[in-house]
């Protein structure tokens, strides 16, 4: 059996959905949003579901990606070819610094979650108060003549194609790591750090690897966001709502399953969109209540997430995507 099956199958499914959405810009927009959020949830889950490190501050890395691309363009006229790699390097350095600090002092579980939240909130407040970053209003990126160089397309589908590539690359990178020594070390650290160290696992190094990989992928998501919407603001790229969404998609989709978070996003984002349009203007707020009730019901009915439930229903499904874990198990 090909060990990349857990990456190939979801990528093909996503490609099929992309093809279906080609005919309708509105559907394409939902596809782009869903694939983007699903993909960075996959990145988040590499840390949370596989390594047991719950970050509530991942919007920091998304924001780094978005703001480096936006400010690089607005301030210096730099194209994505330059700013995307810059964003990735900055996110990696930031994750390394925060990781070193947190792991050096043995922060884990809820304490690690709160520490990461604090870092992202500081960034949120700083950016919201910085005039040359547009404060809380955000910044618009100007249109350029060289549209391809600046990834500025009139139509939506090229962005859909890009996010599809991002999704596939993330799944392949993720599957490669998860099914090799790195992934075994991650799960050992998640399940029992003391035992893992006694068996020769360098805990610090492998927790840092998880953090940096996850942060880098998330920053690519942020860079993609800025290039796609030509607009960034603190609320949508640095806010805690974003970090929480990654957690919700992962839990509903299946913590500890590589492709689980994609399912979560694919279920919840279109559902939220459907409720929003179905309820109409007059019922503003009702859709959120309905959404919340559905979310709670799902969480109660499927403690291992949608992906975990699928796996227990159909045990023949490829095992290598990981093993679903129950809510709460990830926090030691």
């Amino acid at each position, binding site marked *: 059996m090909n060990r990349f099956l857990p990456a190939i199958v979801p990528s093909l499914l996503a490609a099929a959905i992309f093809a279906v959405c080609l005919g309708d810009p509105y559907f394409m927009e939902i596809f782009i949003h869903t694939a983007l959020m699903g993909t960075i949830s996959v990145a988040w889950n590499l840390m949370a579901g596989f390594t047991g490190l719950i970050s509530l501050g991942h919007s920091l890395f998304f924001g780094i990606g978005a703001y480096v691309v936006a400010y690089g363009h607005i301030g210096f006229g730099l194209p994505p070819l330059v700013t995307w790699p810059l964003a990735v390097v900055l996110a990696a350095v930031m994750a390394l610094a925060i990781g070193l600090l947190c792991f050096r002092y043995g922060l884990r579980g809820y304490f690690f979650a709160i520490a990461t939240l604090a870092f992202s909130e500081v960034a949120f407040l700083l950016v919201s108060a910085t005039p040359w970053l547009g404060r809380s209003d955000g910044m618009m990126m100007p249109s350029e003549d060289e549209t391809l160089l600046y990834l500025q397309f009139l139509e939506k589908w090229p962005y859909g194609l890009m996010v599809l590539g991002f999704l596939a690359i993330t799944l392949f990178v993720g599957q490669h790591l998860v099914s090799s020594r790195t992934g*075994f070390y991650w*799960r050992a650290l998640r399940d029992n750090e003391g*035992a893992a*160290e*006694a*068996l020769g696992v*360098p805990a610090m190094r492998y927790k840092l690897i998880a953090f940096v990989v996850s942060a880098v992928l998330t920053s690519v998501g942020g860079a993609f966001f800025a290039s796609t919407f030509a607009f960034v603001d603190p609320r949508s790229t640095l806010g805690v709502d974003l970090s929480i969404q990654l957690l919700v998609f992962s839990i509903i989709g299946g913590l500890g399953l590589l492709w689980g978070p994609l399912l979560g996003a694919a279920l919840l984002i279109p559902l939220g969109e459907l409720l929003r349009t179905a309820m109409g203007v007059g019922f503003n707020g009702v859709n959120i209540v309905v959404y919340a009730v559905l979310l709670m019901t799902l969480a109660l009915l499927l403690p291992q997430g949608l992906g975990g439930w699928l796996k227990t229903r159909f045990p023949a499904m490829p095992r290598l995507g990981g093993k679903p874990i129950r809510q709460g*198990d990830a926090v030691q």
Partner: protein
Amino acid sequence: MTDTILEVTDLGKFFGGLRALSGVCFTVWRGEIFGIIGPNGAGKTTLFNCLSGALKPSTGRIGLDGRRIDGLHPHDICRLGLARTFQIVRPFQGMTVLGNVMVAAYGRHPATADAEHHAHEALRSIGMAHLAHLDAERLSVAEMRRLEIARAIATEPRLLLLDEMLAGLTATEAAALCDQIVALNGRGITIVMVEHSVPVISRMCARSIVLNFGTLLAEGTTQDVLRDPRVQEAYLGSAA
């Protein structure tokens, strides 16, 4: 002619005011099965934690094959050839039995196929090959103990520390495990075992130490150690 593998000098570990270990000195010879006995709370597990690097000793030094290892990280000590099991088993619950052992095998075999091969070997040598694909959380107590050993030997140690592997097992299970420990020793792994059962220690270990309240009561051949009046009083007296 004897050859030293482990040398412990003036080892101390203090938890605040509590002296869990103080002034402990002993030597383990290459190739032997060495026993550690002592009443509950004597400091046996604390000693293992210091040797394996899980705890930093407060005083003293630890030499493995003439190399000083106190203060090193646990994963470095493991790499140097010292492995340990946990008295309270610590399986990786989210993984299979094979996966558990592969984590240990990866240390010397970074490629997955190699690690898997060596993990299978380790499982076979402890009689667990048929359980390889079971989820670790479904094992019985006796099987979890053997998994602890399988993981430890998959790190390919020269020195193996076993912490109360026999507690809570039936007589048959215990006898089988003892045979396997002897077999491991036959393959050249030096073994240090903590055990409460005096008959087991006297049968398996030529030499032993006795700990009591964190200090060394006696060191020597197991026979002599058990005859020592202080040992009789402190340990056997209270246990009888």
